[in-house]
């Protein structure tokens, strides 16, 4: 792993523009230029329909139907094929969603292990140790052997964060990561994010509706009508 240097740019976009074609042609994003530095905790806010989620899915490399350019960790990703992008996401990006999307048939520990097993850089035993360590860091190691469907919402979200962290990604992307949690668990998740950025120099980009969450993060990017304001 390269040594993260605080302040260097980890994600850059150049004039990202996107249209929706259904039901009528509609411009969602208008020439978005954005640069995110390593170790930054960034909140993406705006009214419903302003294009913030759309932007995040483009940044996540899952949406490839756009104009402009995207660069993550110094690599230009625009125009790469789906399989390459899937492999790229596996090693460089972690996801935390509003609905935690754990695989219900697997235990909490197995859920955390899956992205690392997919990456296949270290042995299964090492993956298991590392996954357990991540769960411990998030305070849910006592739930490791339980089926993920048996955990509470807050616990599931922490397991999902551990899963996002397992491959030491350059960026963690969150789509309303606290959207489905009560205020206690929202605070827990926020504190975890803050600790990750401040202590471990992790970069986080989160789309959120939560005013308080946004205000407490390092940087707030507000969008309106497909533009950053």
């Amino acid at each position, binding site marked *: 792993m390269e040594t993260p240097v605080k302040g260097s740019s980890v994600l850059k976009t150049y004039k990202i523009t996107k249209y929706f074609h259904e039901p009528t042609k509609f411009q969602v994003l208008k020439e978005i230029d954005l640069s995110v530095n390593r170790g930054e905790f960034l909140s993406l806010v705006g009214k419903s329909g302003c294009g913030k989620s759309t932007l995040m899915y483009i940044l996540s490399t*899952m949406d490839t139907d756009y104009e402009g350019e995207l660069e993550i960790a110094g690599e230009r990703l625009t125009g790469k094929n789906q399989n390459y992008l*899937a492999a790229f*996401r596996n090693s460089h990006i972690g*996801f935390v*969603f509003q609905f935690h999307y754990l695989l219900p048939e697997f235990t909490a520990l197995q859920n955390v292990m899956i*992205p690392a097993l997919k990456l296949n850089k270290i042995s299964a035993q090492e993956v298991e140790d590392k996954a357990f360590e991540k769960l411990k860091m998030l305070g849910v190691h006592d739930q490791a052997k339980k089926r993920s469907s048996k955990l509470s919402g807050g616990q599931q979200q922490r397991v999902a964060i551990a899963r996002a962290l397992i491959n030491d990604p350059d960026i963690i992307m969150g*789509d309303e990561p606290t959207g489905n949690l009560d205020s206690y668990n929202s605070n827990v998740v926020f504190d975890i994010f803050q600790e990750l950025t401040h202590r471990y120099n992790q970069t986080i980009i989160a789309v959120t509706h939560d005013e308080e969450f946004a205000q407490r993060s390092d940087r707030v990017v507000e969008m309106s009508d497909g533009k950053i304001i």
Partner: protein
Amino acid sequence: MLVFDIAKTHLTSKPKQTIVAMLGVTFGIGMFIAMVSLMTGLNRWTEELTMTSSPDIHIYNDITQERNSILEAVNVNGLNKVHHQKPKNEPNKLRNAREMVNILQKDKRIRGVAPTLSSQVFYNLGPVQLNGTISGVDILEEDKLFDLRSKMKAGNLEDLKANNDGIIMGKGLAKKLSAVLGDRVVMTTPQGYTITLKIVGIFQMGIGTIDNIRSYANISTVQTILQQDQSYITDINIKLYDLYQAKTIAPEFQRMFKYKAEDWETANATILMGVIIRNILTYSVSITLLVVAGFGIYNILNMTIYNKMKDIAILKAMGFSGRDVKYVFMIQSIIIGVLGSVAGLGMGFGLSYLISLAPFNGGDVVSLDHLPVLFDSTYYIIGIVFGVVTTALAGYMPSRKAARIDPIEILRGQ
């Protein structure tokens, strides 16, 4: 392998659904094996029966055959038409039969040649009078062709050879005459000649049409009954090394000897038609069963994929490619296919075995006490290959759909 582990976890977390899908394949393959074993058993049995009753090639004088009328010879260039031509009044004797037998015996493709002569006779025992046939044979030659020795129910072949006024009688015929070994039977030919012969043996071919009418005697005995000379032979029966060559060899002999030479396939066309129809039935029913099982798997996998949309989306977000997702579901259908097919082979074997034990009464027409079942590994291999291929195909389409799922639609849709 990670993809395999995920597939396995999906299968084991819903055991009921997995077992139902497998049972579909199991029944399909099991029924295929059972049906094919019984049908091929029946076919094999019919074929063997056919072989015991008819020679590979039968040479005889077909006096009912159309022949050139004498008018053709007289009025060569004319336009001749003879209405209602009657068969020529000639004995159905084969001329130079001995020479023909000598030539045939030198042919490398021929296993055995048996000259015979046969005649219609009336069997009399007390007041009972029955219509039947008597065949004059060299009993040891005949044994080489039709394995008579194993068909003997009483007495033995050598007794006939030693006894010039002996006969070996069909079991059905003997029963009708209520005659037993050692009894004397009186026979009358259509020409009015009467003779008394002693039963020295009783045979059973297993076909009513033979057992109920035929007796064997020595050639000279039958020649005496018919009041014919020593060269009188009406039929030559031929056994080949390769019975499937009969169809090509028979016309050759017909041209060479100018007598009708009939191969066994032509002589038993109706029986062989039954074989073909049974095969068509077996395969169409089996394929239907497997296609139904295939649709079952297709449905279950489609449902699984629908329920697993979110899982698929998150797998893709975490870096699984479309191909990885496709493999997850393909592996599931192949596991279902392989396990289901293997269980199907077991079920097929079990069913075939049970069928082979079931008693079956063939009545007087055929001697059959159990259904004939053929245990042939070829059909087990066809079964497993077919089962796995069907399930793989049925699984491929839903799996491809899973591979194409756009994760954004699912992740944003919530």
